């Protein structure tokens, strides 16, 4: 994958591009793209993959003008437009799933294939989604991974998660990234999507890790009830970050949308 920049009306946007075939746009979750790069590589075996960063993520410029859900939705359409892509296979993970759903709902005739992986965007009072904005670094792996212990090692890349240097880098990145994500996810990751799901015309696949503890599978069923004809694929032994933990299974599911 190659890291590039595309200019939009408001801000230059960083994106990864690679592979060949049908265009696929991958929208990352609140944690950013770092952990999905391996998965993108495998997607690029079959698709022409574009994975834009939400402004503020990675080394990309922040954009104060993106304040609410409509801003995020239209901004991401602007990116697709500037990349010159028509009707991409739209794939979103977690927060990215929320944005992808909104894109498909506001422009139902421009999206024919949609894959939502552990998507945010709905809220069920009986199943409150844990507050990622009040979690300390060492608490995250338990919510994100099927295997929390292995996850902790991956997230800290072998360093001690209470080491001040690690913490400082972590907090600065968090302030930029989750500061941007908070515009649509804080304090409740819901901005009225449920009332717009009926507009989605795309053939939709819902992909969920069986042991997702952040947005549990009961949310997959809620999406299924909201989107006509949506199919659900459960991934065994995967948590919230299913594309990281089970890349070939997730990849196999997406390929069915071809």
């Amino acid at each position, binding site marked *: 994958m190659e890291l590039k920049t595309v200019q939009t009306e408001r801000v230059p946007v960083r994106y990864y591009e690679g592979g060949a075939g049908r265009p696929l746009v991958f929208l990352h979750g609140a944690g950013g793209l770092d952990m999905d790069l391996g998965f993108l590589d495998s997607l690029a075996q079959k698709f022409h993959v574009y994975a834009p960063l939400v402004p503020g993520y990675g080394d990309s410029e922040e954009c104060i003008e993106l*304040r609410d859900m409509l801003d995020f939705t239209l901004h991401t359409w602007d990116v697709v437009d500037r990349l010159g892509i028509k009707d991409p296979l739209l794939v979103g993970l977690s927060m990215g799933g929320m944005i992808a759903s909104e894109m498909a709902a506001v422009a139902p005739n421009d999206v024919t294939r949609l894959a939502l992986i552990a998507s945010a965007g709905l809220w069920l009072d009986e199943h409150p989604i844990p507050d990622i*904005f*009040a979690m300390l670094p060492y608490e995250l792996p338990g919510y994100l991974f099927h295997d929390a212990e292995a996850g902790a090692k991956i997230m800290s890349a072998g360093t001690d998660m209470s080491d001040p240097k690690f913490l400082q880098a972590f*907090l*600065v990145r968090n*302030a930029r990234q989750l500061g*941007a994500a908070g515009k649509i996810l804080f304090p409740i990751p819901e901005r009225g999507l449920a009332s717009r799901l009926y507009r989605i015309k795309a053939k939709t696949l819902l992909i969920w890790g069986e042991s997702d503890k952040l947005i549990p599978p009961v949310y997959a069923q809620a999406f299924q009830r909201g989107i006509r004809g949506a199919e659900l694929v459960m991934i065994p032994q995967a948590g919230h970050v299913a594309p990281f933990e089970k890349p070939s299974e997730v990849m196999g599911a997406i390929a069915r949308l071809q």
Partner: protein
Amino acid sequence: MRFTWFNLMPWPHLPDDFREKHHSVWVDIDPNLFDPVKGHQVYNSYLDLLEYAGTLGFDGIGVNEHHQNAYGLMPSPNIIAASLARRTDDVALVVLGASIALYNPPLRVAEEFAMLDCISGGRLVAGFPVGTSMDTNYCYGAIPGLTREKYREAHELIKRAWAAREPFAFNGRYTKLRYVNPWPRPIQQPHPPIHIPGGGSIETFDFCIDNTYSYSYLSFGGYIRGQALMRGYWDRVAERNAPDDSPYRAGFAQTICVADTDAEAERLYAKHVSYFYNRCLHVYPGFADAPGYRTIKTIQKGILSQYAPQTMFQELPWKELVDNGSVIAGSPETVTHRMQELIQKLRVGNIFCLMQIGDMPADKCMHSTRLFAEKVIPKLRNMFPEYASDGRFWCKPLAQRATPGALPVESEPVGAER
């Protein structure tokens, strides 16, 4: 010098094992720990203490705003201030402050502050905090990355509302109002003096300098740790070519306890100080700083050890708290000496005296407060004589004020139409 006796209003009935057994003193504190019948006693006792301090020669009595917090029982500082307005007569009411971005619409603050200023006869000192992340983001749901923009807009609305001489339309991003026209209006013109509590960001330094507001550093860390931040402020005042460096451009909160001797101070107050520092400040670190609330610069200079897992609870002992300046405690002589050091080193004209500490009972609090008023304040009063006439950052009460409870004798009805 201006001294304000401040009451955070801590809940005094937290259990001994609070730190070990409970997640946080703030935001998601166990609701079962609050007993409203005890609350009745607590509020009334705390109001009595504020009124008492108002009779001893303090320049102001102070209240602030916190939510879902067991060390601060004032979700509405204006309710407390309103009650004090009627029961005190010549002391400033320092509301430090109302979190303007949390009121919907923020015009409510312009209205309530104007009411307080009218009821008290111009005794209001107004505070406009952004609010802590715990209050603003976690308790009141403001989006962290938008909080400062929302705050600036609320500030603009309030200032314009107080200044306007006819109704106007306000088309903000967060507040849209067709007819802005607050009734009543404040006595103090163009507006009551404004203090801004801050945590060290350059943006807030500049905001105070540009608007002639007093910058208040309200921490519990004490004056020794507070020096670096205040130095940063004064450097900025010089850099921005402010017209003067009056010490009244700054304020500082300090925990203070006074007894007849140093040993007596420890004997009387150590357990209450320990209650405050070891129970009341037990805030879950995940609530300290919502991502996006603080600027990157501020994070880069912050202390981060609090983000590591807490495996054991270390009690902060009296000696350490006194030595590191978190608490200024001892005989009137000791306290005077350390207060002089504080005032000179930080260059602050406004002192917010935290004297009701943790679960301190009223009689001890009165003792400490009276000793401070009688034996310490007079020795500090005339520091910065060259700025003695600087009234820009303090209230200007009416010379002739109404007396509460001074109704005339009821007259007999006269004539059929009555």
